[in-house]
């Protein structure tokens, strides 16, 4: 009897925490590969570098858990950032500028949400459309040119509070917020249910459309914040910035155990996924891996991490399933 329990505990741990094992393993390998990896400054850099993508990833996590996704994050963040900086240059007020970014992110995502709930558009298509529209809007507004000399705006992305870079602080706060929402709110439980089985969730009394809209709005706020951080970090409003960032975000979420079939995912898992990619990028540059090889390795690690995670999960449910 005891052996069965111990085995069960070990495989439960393996499946639930598999991604953290991968993260830890990667950390150790990187440490051995280059001593500069573990310096405080390097780790701080990595955290700053992944901050924007990870903030987007938290939004994706909420969406994917509920059975949706967002292909427009990169474009919307560019639009939000560009408008925000432009407003800052006009008004001189950081607060108004920050608000503009958030409002832009929210409006674009409300549109996403309406397409999905009112017009029954699959989220893939709806956010794909928004991806092109938002990018076009950003380019149109700036005539394709970058806006420089943004003055104090840089403080958002390049400042430090008690030695911690501001993007990392934003990331940490949003991590806690996402975790809190998933665990301690009715909204959080509802999105797990909707993603797990939308019809059953509906038949259990959950207001599916309302929750979906809320999920997009939350995502919109995060995308707006990401826009501010991205532009202030590159010290300019770049309508072409952050192309492909939605895929960075999806990658982190998926590696972190957020399942595309819906109903599964965690905030800490996504953070782990983001760090796995961040560590990998960093160590490959430190070690001097050829650029093309880097891309191959990146893709391979993503595939491996996800396969391992799925395998670990399948083993757990398969075993119990056969006890019928």
């Amino acid at each position: 009897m005891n052996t069965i329990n111990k085995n069960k505990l070990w495989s439960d741990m393996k499946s639930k925490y598999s991604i953290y094992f991968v993260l830890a393993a990667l950390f150790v390998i990187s440490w051995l590969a280059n001593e500069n990896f573990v310096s405080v400054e390097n780790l701080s850099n990595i955290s700053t570098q992944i901050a924007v993508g990870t903030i987007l990833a938290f939004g994706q996590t909420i969406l994917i858990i509920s059975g949706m996704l967002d292909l427009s994050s990169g474009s919307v963040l560019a639009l939000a950032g560009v408008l925000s900086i432009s407003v800052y240059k006009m008004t001189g007020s950081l607060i108004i500028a920050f608000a503009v970014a958030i409002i832009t992110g929210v409006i674009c995502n409300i549109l996403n949400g309406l397409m999905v709930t009112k017009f029954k558009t699959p989220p893939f298509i709806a956010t794909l459309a928004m991806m092109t529209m938002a990018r076009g809007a950003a380019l149109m507004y700036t005539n394709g040119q970058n806006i420089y000399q943004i003055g104090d705006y840089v403080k958002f992305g390049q400042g430090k509070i008690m030695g911690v870079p501001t993007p990392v602080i934003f990331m940490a706060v949003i991590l806690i917020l996402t975790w809190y929402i998933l665990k301690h709110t009715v909204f959080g439980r509802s999105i797990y249910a909707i993603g797990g089985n939308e019809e059953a969730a509906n038949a259990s009394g959950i207001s599916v459309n309302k929750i979906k809209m809320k999920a997009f709005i939350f995502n919109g706020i995060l995308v707006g914040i990401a826009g501010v951080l991205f532009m202030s970090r590159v010290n300019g409003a770049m309508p072409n910035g952050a192309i492909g960032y939605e895929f960075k975000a999806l990658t982190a979420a998926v590696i972190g155990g957020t399942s595309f079939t819906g109903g599964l995912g965690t905030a800490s898992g996504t953070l782990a996924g983001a760090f796995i990619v961040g560590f990998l990028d960093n160590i490959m540059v430190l070690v001097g891996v050829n650029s093309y090889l880097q891309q191959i390795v990146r893709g391979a690690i993503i595939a491996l991490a996800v396969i391992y995670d799925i395998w670990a999960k399948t083993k757990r449910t398969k075993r119990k399933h056969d006890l019928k």
Partner: protein
Amino acid sequence: MKKWLVIALIVSLMASLLTGCSQPAPAAQDGAKAPEASGEKDVYRVAYIARAQADSFAAWLANAVIEEAAKYDNIKLDVFDGQANDDTENGLIENAITNKYDVIIVQPNNGEAQRPYVEKAVAAGIKVITTNARISGIEGASSVDADPYAQAAVNAVVAISQIPQNANVVVLKGPPGNFHADARRDSWQKEFFDKRTDVKIVGEEIANWNKDEAMNYMETWVQANDKIDAIIAMNDNMAAGALEVIKDNPKFKDILSYGVDGTAEAVLLIEQGLMTSTSLQSAYDLATALMDTTNKLVTGAEKQIDIDIDCPLINKDNVQQYIEMHKKAGAIK
């Protein structure tokens, strides 16, 4: 039932593709005379096919061309966006041929991919100019370009005397397979690295012309290297990104840096003494040359022209005039 619908759709799709790619421009309609045959016209229609609107340099160039074209009464300009996609750009060239433009200006996404379509345009009797980067070796076509090899070379040549002995440098490259990126890197190799074999490259990565990617790489390099003496970037965006990382770091206050383009951001950095030099790839000069060439071609003054615009070196000594240039154009307020 559903099956037949799908088949009908596919067949009609294929039919439209086939007819689209078939014969050259249809013959003139009954009664109307071909415009070229009637000699001088009041207004000439010019199609400008940009490689992409999302590329900030391409956007700069397109805007400059539009502004320049406005100065000519006899030129009506239409701008098209190739969306950084060969198929799209080729399709646009064909459309322009069908719509019987007098002049087609092509800024290729990939010269070899656009070559056959440019040749088609020339064969249809339309005047064609290729630019940034020119497609060389097309009989009867004109070109206006800046030479990326030269753009990098003007920096590399001065770097020979500026970069200290046994220096550590980092290199930031443009997208792989990009003609400009490759030519510039090639230029640095031949004009600098082959001649200064004492210099060590401690980091070289592809930052895809992007500022944020360059920043990430520089941050990591700063971790791994105590001494970095110069930043060699294939464009100003990436150089600015690398500089952004070390701007408050006293350890790197004497670092040298080189770029290409002469963007507003770069000239400001040079003025502030933070960036060493760049070379101007003036979209304004390109636009002026393009419209001038267009005018000469349509009025028959010239049959075929090839122009290279200058790529002057911009450094602390001469930066002011370029700041003025950007101010006049509104890029610097």
